[in-house]
């Protein structure tokens, strides 16, 4: 006879403790802050949902959210097609495979703040190579510290440089898993290169591409360090993305209540959009 009891649950305890300390408890602290007001000295006043209402109605939040969506949309629109294209061009066997893989992986190995500083120095007019080249060789007025468009272009190019590799590597993994017979069959069926891409390569890359898009969405939507180091959110507020604004409110102004409310809204949006992405991209999968 087998004894039936609930002792198996004890095995889950370590995970519960771990998750509690690294996610649930900090999260609950944020929830706690988001419904209260404090003037210091550890004195709190109940505030209800006022902060949420205030944040959602504020022009500042809406503008930052708009910039955030714009930024994410731009980098996804560039990195995904570019990543697929690069992955398709990479050799599938031979000497160049490891060389390409290492070259691709290099940008991803560099820490965020280093990437920010690198591009900052690189893009500064007069000092940086890119800045010097644009202004003094090409004669284009390019100054990311003064010009909004220049600042935007710089953060977008920086992100593309840093993260396209992720899409490339994931797509490449999908591509190399396609057996040769598929390409041979396509040749025999007289398929064009486009048809091979559309009916063989793209479907086989779909799973990894879903992961790539999700990761890139979440990462770019939560991006902080690189634009903060590069432009500091400027010029003006032009590159102040959600997370930069959030840090300004929380640590700059020390408005813990509104900052907590904003964090939760931010989190909810990220979660919601990720869920929509995932549901849409996997909806016609066979069970």
């Amino acid at each position: 006879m087998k004894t039936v009891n609930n002792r198996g649950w004890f095995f889950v305890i370590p995970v519960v403790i771990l998750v509690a300390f690294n996610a649930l408890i900090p999260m609950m602290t944020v929830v706690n802050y988001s419904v209260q007001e404090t003037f210091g000295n550890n004195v709190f006043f109940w505030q209800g949902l006022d902060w949420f209402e205030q944040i959602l109605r504020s022009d500042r939040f809406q503008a930052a959210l708009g910039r955030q969506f714009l930024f994410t949309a731009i980098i996804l629109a560039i990195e995904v097609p570019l990543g697929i294209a690069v992955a398709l061009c990479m050799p599938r066997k031979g000497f160049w495979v490891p060389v390409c893989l290492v070259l691709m992986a290099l940008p991803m190995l560099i820490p965020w703040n280093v990437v920010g500083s690198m591009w900052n120095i690189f893009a500064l007019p007069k000092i940086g190579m890119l800045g010097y080249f644009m202004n003094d060789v090409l004669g284009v007025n390019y100054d990311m510290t003064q010009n909004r468009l220049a600042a935007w272009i710089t953060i977008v190019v920086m992100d593309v440089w840093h993260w396209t590799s992720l899409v490339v590597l994931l797509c490449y993994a999908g591509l190399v898993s396609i057996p040769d017979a598929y390409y041979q069959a396509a040749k025999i069926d007289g398929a064009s290169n486009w048809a091979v891409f559309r009916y063989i390569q793209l479907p086989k890359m779909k799973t990894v591409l879903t992961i790539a898009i999700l990761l890139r969405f979440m990462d770019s939507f939560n991006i902080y360090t690189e634009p903060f180091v590069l432009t500091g959110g400027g010029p003006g507020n032009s590159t102040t993305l959600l997370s930069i604004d959030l840090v300004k409110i929380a640590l700059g102004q020390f408005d813990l209540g509104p900052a907590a409310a904003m964090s939760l809204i931010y989190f909810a949006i990220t979660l919601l959009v990720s869920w929509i992405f995932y549901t849409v991209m996997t909806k016609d999968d066979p069970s």
Partner: protein
Amino acid sequence: MARVTLKNLRHSYMPDPQGPDDFALKGLDVTWRDGGAYALLGPSGCGKSTLLNIISGLLTPSEGAILFDDEDVTQMTPDERHISQVFQFPVVYDTMTVRNNLAFPLKNRGVAPDRIKARVDEIAEMLEVTEMLDVRASNLSPDNKQKISMGRGLVRDDVNVIMFDEPLTVIDPHLKWKLRSKLKELHQRIKLTMIYVTHDQTEALTFADEVVVMQDGEVVQIGTPVELFERPQHTFVGHFIGSPGMNVLPCDAQGSHAIFEGHKVALEGAVTGHGGEVRLGIRPEHVRIGETGLPAQVIKISDVGRHFVVEVQIGESRLKVIVEGTAPTQGETVNVSFIPEKTRVYRNGWIATEVPK
């Protein structure tokens, strides 16, 4: 549809092949008539897949030529050759429906839509997949996927040759038989030249009118299943075909007799040639246990259902005998005799007895 001719075909995967060992195919001269069903049979690594890829145009041979009827197609792409190939693992376009899968080769060639529909319906009916036409191909079972791969070859009416590269590898045993007879039936209906590559003798012998047995990049024998069984040209064929394979025993040749373990054994005809390694070849089906003959001791008996496979020892040699009815008992001493018309001598592997008049 076409006759296929291979002229002195050699292929090496190395850039600069030196000796014959560097070649995966060592000089093939074969002609396959239009509308025939052929099998390429051989163990893994014998070069049969290489040959198949050369015929389909996925590989260009190092030397020699391939002719479809009288046209040299050696340098043509698979598309230009109008061939079709079914692979070991079913290849279907996952995101398409069965209908679109079948229509794909026609669409790529710009065939008119109503013609495509007619062809697809016809082929679907032939393959018995009509009710699945609107199912997504990724949801099919392996045997149905393999049917669709086949269908994509059959749907075109400009196909010269259709080739099968071990197409039943991933199919469940009970469906193998079904699919195999379907193939045979299809061949009888549409009379296309078909080449079937396999390492499974049952598949080869049931499918093909003529079987090409290959070993180490060479053709060892081409013949009907009956010829391969009745008169193997090489000990390899004798051993590879048949279950159990032919007994290959050390012996000496003397006139039109063989001396086997000190006994004189009658052969089908006079022995040809001199020297080399001489072997006696006799199929287990052609050995009799009876009142007269060579004294032998029964070592092992296995009941394989329809008959018994009895292993006996004569002197230093062991041979297998197929016994119908009642089997002798283990350890018993019996007399075995060989049917002279089926008893042959092989020299260095190749048959060395004259055909009886």
